[in-house]
């Protein structure tokens, strides 16, 4: 489970979604440096949310020997529904304020995608293990064939 890689990808995704929504009415090229700079606070927000609300599920599951896919299937539906409810509540109570809507939309999309990335790392590891096992088996087979031919 590569948390840093996930945080970097999620922050980039959050940055893009947030600024696309904010700047969808008018975009000035002069604002680009500020957009770049905003990566730092966005990274901090994303890190707090992901490490605080998504990682614990996977850490706890590793101790209990669940696969990442099992954790995803078990917990993600409830997480996404609660996150959606909270984001909708926030957007409505803020009277559809553009900045807050952008924040909630990027937070919802990023956290959901982050779940998928975390769950897929397990799959990658599983695939790598599978490939390694297949390679070893093939090598062994080749060695046996060579020995037999000799």
């Amino acid at each position: 489970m590569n948390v840093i890689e996930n945080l970097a990808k999620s922050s980039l995704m959050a940055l893009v979604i947030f600024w696309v929504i904010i700047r969808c009415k008018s975009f000035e090229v002069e604002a680009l440096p500020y957009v770049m700079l905003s990566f730092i606070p966005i990274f901090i927000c994303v890190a707090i949310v992901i490490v605080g609300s998504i990682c614990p599920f996977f850490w706890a599951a590793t101790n209990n020997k669940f696969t990442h896919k099992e954790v995803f299937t078990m917990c993600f539906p409830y997480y996404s529904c609660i996150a959606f409810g909270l984001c909708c509540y926030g957007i409505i109570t803020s009277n559809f304020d553009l900045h807050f809507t952008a924040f909630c939309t990027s937070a919802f999309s990023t956290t959901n995608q982050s779940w998928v990335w975390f769950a897929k790392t397990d799959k990658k590891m599983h695939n790598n293990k599978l490939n390694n096992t297949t390679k070893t088996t093939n090598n062994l087979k080749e060695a046996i064939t060579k020995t037999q031919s000799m």
Partner: protein
Amino acid sequence: MKQLVIIIASILFSILFYNRGIGLNLSLFTVITILLLYIHNSHKFKNKTILLHVLAYVLSAVFVFVNHTALAIITNCAAFFTLVGTVSQSANSIYVQWFNGIYSSVAGLFHRNFEVNETAHKIDWKKNIDVMHWAKLIGIPLVFVTVFILLYKNGNPIFNDFVSQINFSFINLQWVLFTILGYYLFSNISKPVQVDPATSIDLKTNNRLLKGQHFSEEKLKKEKQLGITLLGFLNLLLVFYIVTDIISLSTIETTKASALSNHVHSGINTLIASILIAIGVILYFFRGNLNFYAENRTLKSIAFAWIFLNVLLIGLIAIKNQIYITSFGLTYKRIGVHIYILLTLIGLITTFLKVLKVKNLAYLFRRNTQIAFVVLLVCSTINWDATITKYNLTKAKTFDVGYLINLTNRNAIILNELKDTIEISQRQKDSIETKYLNHITSLSQKDWQEWNYETFANSEKLKKTNH
């Protein structure tokens, strides 16, 4: 082909909802949703349960167009989630279907990353197109070109003027984003997903109560004795309460609003506590093996008698509420009391059936939630604001005009029509007229997406307003 359908649906979504209020668009959205679900899941549309939910969804859309009330809109949303959940798995309880429906609509696309068929498809797709290469090919030059444009802008005034003239204002990015939102929603619901293990557990749970392994006659006998004593005393107490309530009902003064209000509200509180405890006690005693105990007839009879007495109690509260309504008119709270009474009555009937037919708790939850959904659908068939106004001004002995004026604009036309038939002050008549004019003006300013039945019914008046 199926992707094209989703893209067309998302463009229609933007045309219908972008910067528009609710009206005809929600009804048309219903049609689009059903078509999209049918195209992507045509094999499932032979199932009767799904067809029944399609009918409920269509009916709710008709009520949105005809009544245009908040309740009708809420019902339409509930019917949408129910239909999506039913398409994902039709054999589930309705509350699991709601959950599946909400989950599919909110995050179906993310969930489908792990479905076997989809994965196989994705691997092929990724093999054909090198996504990372394309991302680098577009992303890296884009970032560098933008940075260098910013740098060169300050170095050359002609280049600066040229860059300033580039204008993308003809693209409405907000509209595009709204279309993407529509695409996301339709992609989510095109292949509804299931929440596991909730769905599989619910499918495994049937309605029948099974006999437990530890069947001790001695224990059951003691439990039966406790049940008979407890329910017997409670029956006596309830009989005494009902007799005194009937006496107090006959002496009630219908002219005093405060006395009547006190009677109804205290009665409702008693009802809430009594019914909840009644159902709880009955469910406790009939939770397990006592249902299969040969000598449980007396206990069952006493439990049924208690349910019957609670039904009587409900009847008395309904009479009190009706007296209140006849004397002082309809309000949302008084209608709410009637609906609560109806739901409680249904709850008691399902508890009675649970004990009679030896069913489990899942049966009770399933039936009650199904009935609650039907009640919601039925309630959305009525334009409550107009009904309250018409009843209060034509049938009630006294009424509160201020309350009627403060209701939503859905009663503006009928209130204006009846204002000359009642005795009210000139100031109140002016308020009604202002409300009516505001409503007609707002109706005439609506776009076709926001139209409802009222727009068509008053088209002549609207033409005059426009001229």
